């Protein structure tokens, strides 16, 4: 179960961003492909544990799935593929290049920032 260590690496990164902008973390968005080797459901389970006691505590984790796409080296066609069948859908050749599907990305962090508008209210 390496999802916890991945979550811990994620939280370190998120804490840096939150500190920089002095905000409270509300939502963290990840992009995960099936060939990343990370199970989104396990990551969701590990997330609150990794967040505990950090500025991301109580924040929400959103995972955007990324589809597997391959490009065929022999016919050039681009197609969707299954994790253990990265064949060209057009000609069936196994010599393909992966276009997407192995990502493990931190896409966005949503922060709550408090703007003190006292001055504005006094006007």
């Amino acid at each position, binding site marked *: 179960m390496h999802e916890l260590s*991945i979550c811990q690496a994620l939280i370190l*990164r998120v804490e840096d*961003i939150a500190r920089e*902008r002095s905000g409270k973390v509300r939502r963290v968005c990840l992009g995960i492909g099936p060939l990343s080797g990370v199970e989104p459901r396990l990551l969701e389970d590990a997330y609150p544990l990794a967040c505990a006691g950090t500025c991301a505590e109580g924040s929400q984790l959103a995972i955007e799935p990324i589809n597997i796409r391959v490009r065929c080296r022999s016919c050039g066609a681009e197609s969707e593929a299954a994790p253990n069948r990265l064949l060209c859908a057009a000609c069936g050749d196994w*010599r393909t290049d992966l276009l997407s599907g192995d990502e493990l990305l*931190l896409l966005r962090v949503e922060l709550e*920032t408090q703007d003190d508008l006292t001055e504005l209210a006094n006007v």
Partner: protein
Amino acid sequence: MCETCGCLATQVQDTETVDVLSRLLEANDRTAAHNRHHFDGHGVVAFNIMSSPGAGKTALLEATIDAFKADFRIAVIEGDLETDNDARRIRARGVPAVQITTGSACHLDARMVHEALHELPLSQFDIVFIENVGNLVCPASFDLGQHRNVVLLSAAEGDDKPAKYPVMFRAADLVLLSKMDLAPLLDDFDAARAEQAIRALANAAPVIPLSARKRLNLEPWQAWLRGEIEKIRATQAAAHDAHEAHYEHHHHPAVA
């Protein structure tokens, strides 16, 4: 108006979205690049050996050490949850082994390997084998700084393992079908089917059947090793020459 007391001071809650788009394992990747730099700086070639538990990684290393010890200076980094049994087996072959006990961690990461490298004077070695924790899932996600990945699939595991663990077998630069001396006793292992399952992952890696214990068909594996060592050393030498040319007029101490 303030919601708490009704005063005129107002606090507006803003949501700021910060686009990051970086790899989650960025920190591990940086340490891995650092390890690779260390290896390259000393002309050391590093192999990451991965498989499920009991597929014969240590037996393969024992046989390889016996065959290569005269020509190459070898060191081994051993990853295990507990015990240093494997490291002791390696040391019995006359080769230094650094044991990393990961506790409950199911994989080696670049930081653990970096710490182990502090115990190995790299200038005294040509090859470092990193024997990863026996596991077909987690180790595939962590770059350690190796030059090549070798994945073992033992005959007793079944030829459908590449289809079940695509991330691991997609990462392989070479797949060794190990314990092939047992294949005649098993009716469900077909080397051709295993190879087909690896091709279905769009992986062109060579597939070599062998038995380390029975010393069967070790030559193709050894030839592959020698070939890759030669290729990696050529790349290292070219990078070194480019670096030297760039700093031609500067005298600088070699980085340890």
